[in-house]
């Protein structure tokens, strides 16, 4: 019995060998998987680096060969080699600011309503609908804007329907789904104890939302807004169709929103197709791309800075 027992039991040496084999197999396995992941991650970085390098290589001649004063000029007219970037910058910023002013209050209030006040059936009906909105191709929205929004804006008294305001309206509409669904997710991620605690202290539902839930979800909301702005500034086709593409800087005033503008994205899209490769025009268009890249980069860093600003990890919610 004792002997049998001894025979069935693997010797120490055998056990050690098994453990080593197991460990080896695991190591080999993990080696492949780990390095696979590393490779995938690295390739993403490498591809981004390559894109950035390509952008810099093609765009830098514009900044090296053209005097800065000319790039800062107020006329953009490639035929006469007038490379003033100001009207394009102005157009992009105006349209994006307009879109943000329209979309952020609308988006935040919609998300707060859906997340905190709406009955369940409404939430279940509207949330998928809003997410569906995000899936509409921008060219379709651009066409709708061209056909319906532009005549509407003209009826408001604008000299033409193709204005910065029309573009802002369209972009606001396009960034709403992003803002609403991410804000709603951020609100949802606020721990239940926060609400319970606030209500237990005698706060009304409104006080609870305004004083407790919204501040707790701050970082998620900031990201929602930034992603919304990002969508707006990078949008091309829809904007090209409704903003009129006049590289003009009208006199400042509230009326500027009702003047046509030309955005950086629309300029690249409209002119890149026919430009001779290697010409100055070609390089300047890539230069416009660099400026656009820097602006989005600045917005992203600003978002990171704002989110990082002393908010506890937990309250950030889903991110």
């Amino acid at each position, binding site marked *: 019995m004792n002997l049998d027992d001894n025979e069935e039991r693997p010797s120490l040496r055998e056990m050690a060998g098994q453990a080593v084999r197991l460990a080896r197999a695991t190591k080999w396995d993990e080696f492949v998987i780990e390095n696979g992941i590393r490779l995938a991650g690295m390739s993403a970085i490498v591809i981004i680096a390559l894109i950035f390098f390509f952008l810099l290589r093609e765009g830098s001649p514009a900044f090296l060969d053209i005097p800065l004063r000319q790039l800062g000029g*107020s006329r953009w007219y490639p*035929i*006469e080699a007038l490379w003033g970037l100001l009207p394009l910058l102005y157009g992009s910023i105006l349209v994006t600011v307009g879109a943000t002013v329209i979309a952020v209050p609308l988006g935040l209030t919609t998300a707060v309503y859906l997340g905190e006040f709406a009955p369940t059936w409404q939430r279940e009906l509207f949330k998928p609908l809003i997410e569906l909105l995000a899936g509409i191709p921008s060219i379709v929205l651009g066409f709708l804007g061209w056909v319906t929004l532009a005549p509407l804006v003209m009826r408001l008294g604008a000299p*033409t329907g193709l204005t910065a305001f029309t573009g802002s309206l369209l972009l606001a509409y396009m960034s709403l789904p992003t803002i609403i669904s991410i804000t709603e997710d951020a609100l949802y991620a606020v721990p239940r104890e926060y609400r319970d605690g606030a209500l237990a202290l005698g706060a009304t539902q409104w006080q609870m939302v305004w004083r407790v839930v919204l501040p707790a979800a701050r970082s998620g909301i900031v990201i929602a807004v930034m992603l919304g702005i990002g969508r707006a500034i990078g949008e091309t086709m829809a904007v090209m169709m409704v903003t009129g593409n006049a590289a003009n800087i009208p006199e400042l005033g509230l009326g500027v929103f009702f003047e046509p503008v030309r955005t950086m994205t629309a300029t690249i899209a409209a002119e890149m197709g026919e430009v001779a490769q290697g010409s100055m025009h070609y390089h300047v268009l890539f230069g416009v791309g660099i400026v656009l890249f820097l602006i989005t980069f600045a917005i992203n860093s600003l978002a990171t800075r704002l989110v990082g600003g002393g908010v506890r990890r937990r309250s950030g919610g889903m991110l």
Partner: protein
Amino acid sequence: MTDSYRMGRAGSPRLQANKRQTISRMGISRVSLLIFILAAALVLAACRGGRGGTGDQAGAGLDRAIQNKGSDTLVNLALAWAEAYREVEPTISIAVTGGGSGTGIASLLNGTVDLANSSRDISENEIATAANLGIDIREYVVAIDAIAIIVHLDNPVEELTLNQLADIYTGRITNWREVGGNDAPIILLSRETNSGTHVYFLEEVVRLGDRQNRDIFAPETLLMPSSVGITSELRRNPNAIGYEGLGYVDESHEKVIRVAAGPGLPYIPPSLETAASGDYPIARNLYIYTAGEPTGEIARYLDWILSPVGQAIVRELGFVPIVDGALD
């Protein structure tokens, strides 16, 4: 025994959990990798597409392709002809390249092309060079490029001079009242700067054909990506003015302005006849030049271009055909 047994059991779930985590992490990075690869592929494809420009159809079963080079205004039309001619004569291939009218004529004189496309008359210098080389240049008008000035149907303005048009498009005149219309701001519509029509309008109207003149479009000009963009904005905006190739005009939806070459000169409506006769001021002939009397396949190709079939393509691309039948 119990120890080792437990060890094995305790080990494996942890391992599985580890694997599961790894796999799901890998899933995410794979997706993002895929997106990046797709994006990169798109970027590359876009770059290649930009380079693709003018097609080259040489070497399709014949000893030598017919070489056709010149004006960029004509390049799309020439490509359309070459493509359509394949169905007529599948064995003949025609190589089309742009580069400008001057390049085309120079190549013709060098003997490297058979047909030179040009959007301008051949110059005295070029004729002299040809004579020195003993080349007898033949000129064929293959199409007419006429630009119609169009406004909204409700606009009371019927006629404008070229000088008024230049003042309007450079922003020196900004109200319709100044040219006999309503008291309303003028909304300027134009094609994008990369369009041949834009350049022609710039040279012939905005600068009045004066090579020293450096005037350019007013910054308020709305630049439309297509002719359709111009016409549809024009149809709903009573204060807009625009221009387009005569082939695109639809007089039931837009009013065509009569244009005078200068103050005191007669106002001429654009039409096939006035464009062909040269009375209408914003029109130019588009030419094909050959070195000597064309023969064989080249002569047959030219005949086909000037036939109603070839001229129907002229109209499709927004130019004025030179054969009456092609208009209907």
